[in-house]
């Protein structure tokens, strides 16, 4: 479904140049759920953003469904891949109702039966019709994230990219969203690529996980490997240890990877 090879991208120029991602390779099968973990600034979001066409100055190839995608995307080519962002407060236009936010993709892509579709997708993400005409400030964080997911789903894409969809949420709300996401995946046979810094969250949703550090993938592992701690790279192990809660003794062995 998704095939990325030799992907690199840098920001800035000259002395200030930052090589955000280097020689990134990735392949995700149809219906698979793939996780990307790593520390802040390791380039996780950058990969996702390049995939959906927010950045266009990358090198390498990205194939979706075997088709290489161009650097400049056409509206039609965007339809099959959608993204959910980290911050539910920042990803909804504050001056638009839920209805307007959800209808817009339909207008852009010229789809009909808008009202029907909006109501249907709202129901799917667990929001009743009473939420249809609310503004974002009338919604809680979890509800907002549901709307953001609904927006991503309304075009019926096959791939959804999730950039830390729960990290701004409360633990209890996080559980609801994670449940929703896995239910949706089952129902629609979606392909997920999910980014997070929380191993447990990624582990919950994804069957395969890549660990990134400083713009490079240092290790790829299966869910089982992760649960059992069967890890090769030192950085990954360190991340794994830290994710298990506070442990003074283990800390002594920590190294700087950033």
């Amino acid at each position, binding site marked *: 479904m998704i095939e990325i090879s030799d992907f690199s991208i840098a920001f800035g120029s000259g002395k200030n140049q930052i090589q955000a991602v280097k020689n990134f390779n990735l392949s995700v099968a149809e219906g698979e759920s793939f996780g990307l973990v790593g520390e802040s600034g390791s380039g996780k979001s950058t990969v996702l*953003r390049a995939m*959906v*066409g*927010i950045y266009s100055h990358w090198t390498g190839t990205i194939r979706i469904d075997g088709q290489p995608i161009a650097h400049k*995307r*056409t*509206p*039609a080519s*965007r*339809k099959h*891949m*959608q*993204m959910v*962002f*980290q*911050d539910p*407060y*920042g*990803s*909804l*236009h*504050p*001056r638009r*109702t839920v*209805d*307007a936010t959800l209808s*817009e*993709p339909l207008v*852009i*892509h010229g789809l009909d039966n808008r009202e029907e579709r909006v109501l249907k997708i709202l129901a799917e993400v667990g929001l*009743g019709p*009473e*939420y*249809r*005409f*609310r*503004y974002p*400030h*009338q919604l809680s964080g979890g509800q907002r994230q549901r709307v*953001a997911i609904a*927006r991503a789903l309304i*075009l019926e894409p096959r791939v959804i990219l999730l950039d830390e969809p729960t990290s701004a949420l409360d633990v209890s709300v996080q559980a609801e969203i994670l449940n929703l996401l896995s239910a949706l995946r089952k129902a629609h046979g979606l392909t997920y690529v999910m980014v997070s810094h929380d191993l447990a969250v990624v582990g919950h949703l994804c069957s395969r996980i890549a660990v990134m550090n400083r713009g490079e993938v240092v290790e790829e592992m299966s869910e089982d490997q992760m649960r059992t701690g069967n890890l090769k790279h030192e950085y990954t192990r360190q991340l794994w240890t830290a994710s298990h809660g506070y442990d003074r003794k283990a800390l002594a062995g920590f190294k700087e990877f950033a």
Partner: protein
Amino acid sequence: MSEHTQTSSSVVSWLLADSPDNAFQARCQRAYISWLSFKSNPIAMLGFFIVLFLCLVALFAPLLTSGDGTTQELSNRLAPPSAEHWFGTDELGRDIYDRIVWGSRVTLYIIFLVSIIVMPIGLIIGTTAGLFGGVVDATLMRITDIFLAFPRLILALAFVAVLGPGLENAVLAIALTTWSPYARLARAETLTLRNSEYILAAQIMGASRIRVLLAHIMPMCMSSTIVRLTLDMAGIILTAAGLGFLGLGAQPPLAEWGAMIASGRDYLLDQWWVPTIPGIAILVVSLGFNLLGDGLRDVLDPRSSGGH
């Protein structure tokens, strides 16, 4: 009475319902909530009432006056305020009260024209520069800088010289010299919005840049522009008056407050009311707009309300 309270309370509950049933109700709710927070600001309310008063006076000018303010009564010139002439008469024996009332129409007209010119120009240039960046940004911003660096009155005079005198042209000239700070403001705002996730989300959806510009960015820049415009209104009225005085604005006998001050200023020491009353009119209206703008900022400014 009781029926009345009932309907009004049902309207209120309609306005405050948690889940609006349609887009119209949602919009009304938004406006109502804004209104509530606006209403709780006494200074802003004062401004609102002043502006409302101005509009009413302009609307009902024919009912409020006995003449159109251009009738001269040379035998009764420079008469002090009295029961017959509430604000006295001017150097041509015209009733100043009538002129003030009719002048409110001119003032509103100026405000209206300037607003509908400045806002779109400033917004389009600023948001385009901010969204497109690169060469477009550099070019548009240089042009903006040049307009900004120009002495405003000179620029306005030059425009009027080209367009010819008259109220519309004066307004056009003012607008053409006023838009540049708005473009800057809109650009700065666009720059912060450009990378916000809801704009990215729209792009991912396949929204064209034009769509992003018009449907997503502009509405966000609108409120700060409106606020700035209300706050600038005093200056705009005064500049229009200045142009009128230089013979390039409203043409007599049209009662325009600024021109009234300008032509009445020689009488300040002996017949204080001739320039002072239009001066007070301008003062009150500018103050009204300023207060309103201050209040609007609290209500509309995304930084101070809503959000997180």
